Structure formats: structure tokens, C-alpha cells
């Protein structure tokens, strides 16, 4: 599936390009773009991690010259290309065929984009969770939440993945943040009775758990 490469196909194609001679990352990106005439738009963020993985598997090596990494195919890489020669030929003829059938090509591009974006959504959601877990969130309305005023937030003052704030402070911050966030979620929205009842049950449940733990 050419426009957005299937798993393993991009790596095969990268090997194919490196077979012609050593190249640096941007050269590879440009060659892929030329080859696929804008139907496939690889970015540095896609290419470099693959090259790194291929390097750890011994298929390519690199030489750093002038701050740039020049990648070169290894004997193991050449062997992989030979072993998968049929697959490569099939991939190339697939590329030609799909450019000939516009409707099919469009369908493939659509599903390729959908898959990529699905992956991205999950990746970013996980990254956001991680960031929040490290406590880099500014709770809404903390200033009006009482004597604590501006709550110290370690993430904003020193972003180096902190060893973690004092548990007592963290607990206090979370507690205030919890109320503030729930307020923000419900503010200005007309909630249905069902939503409210479920929310109350959730709050009771959380409180019950804490009671049991802290008594």
C-alpha cells in the first residue's frame, strides 16, 4: 500500500534507496517525495526513528560528518534486500498500478491517512496523560480556592522531569485541582438529571474509597 507505507514497507524502501549509495536523512526524505510525487509525505519524525531501529538491527550504519548523519547499507541490509526482492518488486508494481487507478489510489490514501491519524491520536493522548501525571497542569481557578492562592507547580518552574514534588504538597494540589476541574467541567453547562446523579454516585464512590483507606 504505497501512499502511506504499510508496516515494514517503508524500511524495505529505505534499504532500496541506500543500496544506491550512502545518504543523509533529508536526502532520503527528498527521494521518497520525488518517487511518490507528493502522494507520500514522509517527515523527519517518521524517517529517523526507522533508521535508528534499522541501525540497531544491523541493517544500516551511520557516519557523522559535519553534524549530519550519513547512512550506509550494511551487508546484512543487502542480504535482507535480496531475501525480500519479490516483495520489493511487488511493492513497486503496486505503486505503478495504484497510480493508474485513481479511485483505488484515493481509497488507499484515505485509509492510510485514517490509520496514521488514529495512531497519532492515541500517541498524543498518552503523551498528554504522561505530562499531566508529572504535574504540569495548572488547575483552573486555584486563586479563588482559598488560602493557598498560587499553587507552586514544579513542572512550570523546572521542566526537567522532576524527581516528584513532596507527596504532601502533591496531595494538596491534586485535591484543589480536583474540585477546580470538576467545577470547570460542569460550569455553564446544563447537565441532565441522569448525568448529575451518576456524577454524585462517582463522588460518593471516591469518597468511600478514601474513607476506608484513611480511617
Amino acid at each position, binding site marked *: 500500500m504505497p501512499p502511506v507505507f504499510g508496516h515494514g514497507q517503508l524500511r524495505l524502501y529505505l534499504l532500496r534507496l541506500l543500496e544506491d549509495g550512502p545518504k543523509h*536523512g533529508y536526502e532520503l526524505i527528498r527521494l521518497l517525495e520525488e518517487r511518490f510525487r507528493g*502522494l507520500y509525505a514522509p517527515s523527519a519524525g517518521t524517517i529517523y526513528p526507522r533508521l535508528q531501529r534499522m541501525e540497531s538491527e544491523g541493517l544500516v550504519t551511520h557516519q557523522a560528518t559535519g553534524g549530519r548523519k550519513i547512512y550506509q547499507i550494511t551487508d546484512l541490509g543487502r542480504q535482507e534486500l535480496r531475501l525480500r526482492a519479490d516483495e520489493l518488486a511487488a511493492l513497486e508494481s503496486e505503486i505503478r498500478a495504484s497510480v493508474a487507478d485513481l479511485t483505488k489510489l484515493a481509497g488507499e490514501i484515505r485509509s492510510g491517512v485514517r490509520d496514521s491519524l488514529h495512531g*497519532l491520536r492515541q500517541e498524543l493522548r498518552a503523551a498528554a496523560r504522561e*505530562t499531566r501525571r508529572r504535574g504540569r497542569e495548572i488547575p483552573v481557578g486555584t486563586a479563588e480556592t482559598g488560602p493557598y492562592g498560587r499553587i507552586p507547580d514544579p513542572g512550570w518552574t523546572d521542566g526537567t522531569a522532576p524527581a516528584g514534588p513532596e507527596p504532601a504538597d502533591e496531595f494538596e494540589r491534586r485535591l484543589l485541582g480536583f474540585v477546580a476541574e470538576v467545577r470547570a467541567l460542569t460550569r455553564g453547562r446544563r447537565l441532565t438529571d441522569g448525568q448529575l446523579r451518576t456524577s454524585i454516585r462517582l463522588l460518593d464512590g471516591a469518597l468511600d474509597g478514601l474513607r476506608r483507606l484513611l480511617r
Partner: protein
Amino acid sequence: MTSWTVAGSDRLTITEPVDRVVVRLDYARLNVVGTEGPARIEISRPGRRPVLVEYRSGTLSVRQRGRWSWMELVRLVRRRVGPEVSIGVPPGTEVDLQLVTGTLLASGLTGSTRAEITSGQITLMGLRGRTSVKLVSGPVEALGVAGDLTMETVSGELILAEGTAERIQARTVSGAITCDLDNPGESEIDLATISGSVTVRVRRDSDLDVRLHATSGTITSDFPELTVDGLRSWVGKRAQGILGTGRGRLAVTAQSGSITLLARATAE
């Protein structure tokens, strides 16, 4: 002027040079792809209303003839009718597309691309030129877009992956905005939503002057360079700061949604 009326599934090849494509359809699945060679059109399932293709001095236009029948209107509401039109044109072609309802794919174009859909979905892939898309209801999904990108929708999600555009403007009223950007240079990025949330990932080594403003949502950031002011909730929250040299600009506003700014690790 040359014209074709396509009543069944058909493929046309335009031997003369095409530098502009204009499409006006009520309901369709429309694909416009930049390819080498002469301009081509594939039409399938045109239904009872023939598709009219015209070529006049460099401009290729595609329209539909006739009126909707009652049954077609019923099926239109259920989104089950309408042709699939696929157009292959040289990458630099100027493209102007309008649909009432339907889905659109634009890919591999390097010129100016404009698209307007009332309700449906837009997919953009590997565009390099000036791109402007508008929807009333429905999402925009974009992958690998460079150049200049404007996305607007009233209700619908806007999502951009592997974006290297120098200028990005994304606006939605009730949808979420998700952008993953891979361009540390002098970008101008402007994202705004009323009730959706915004998630942006930029490179760790970005050169950006960042301004985030959330009226009632939270702001979360991976960048310690940003400082927060205005914790007074009635004016909302602002976080701002300079990343790198601050040559580019990133402005995000969300009224009731939250803003998340993530750092993308740079491999090289």
C-alpha cells in the same frame, strides 16, 4: 470548448494542458490527486443525474445536471447517493472545489487548493501549496501538509499530523484541534476553538513565541520555558514564553476547552 456528459461509469483523459480545476457538486465522493501525465477523470455511480465535464482554455470543470428527485433527496439525507469522482491533475494545478454534502480527498497538490463543503468530511494528504478548507459540519483530517494551511469548521474536529506548514490557521467552534508539527522554523501557527480542546505537539527545539489562552479550561505544557500569569479565573489563564530564538509564533485560544502543549522529541 470541449464537453462530455457522463451518465454511466466512465474514464476520460484530457489531452490538452490543465492548470485549473473547478468542481461544483451537490453530493459526491470527490478525490483530487496530483499525478504526472495528462489530466484524468474517473466517474463511477453517477446515478440518474449525469455528470457534466467541460474543458475550456486550461480550466477543467465538473458539475452535475438536473434536479434532485424526491427519492434521491431522501437518500441524500441518508448519504447513500451520489457519484464518486476522481480527478488526477498535474501537481501544480489550481483547484477549487465545492460540495454540499460529501467527502473530499485532496492529495499531492502543490498549487492553490480551495475546498468548501457544507456537511461532510475533508481529508488532505501531502499538500505543498496554499490550502484553504471550510466546512460547516464535519471533520478535517490532514497528514503531511506543508506550505500555507487554513482549516475552518463550525462543528467538527481538526486534526493535522506531520505538519510542516509555515503558516497554519485552524478555527472551530465546537470541535477539538489536534496538531502534530514537525517544523522548527519560522512558522506562524494560530489555533482557536470555542468549546473544544486543543492539543499541539511541537518539536523540542522549536523557535517559537508561544501564547496560550484558556478562558475556563486548563493549560498543560511540556515546556518549562512558559510562564503563567493571570491565575484569576475570571479573565482566564495565559501561559506564554519564548522557545529557542522565538522567530515563529504559536497562538492558541480555547474558551471552555483545555490546551495541551507537548514536546516532540527530536531524533536528529
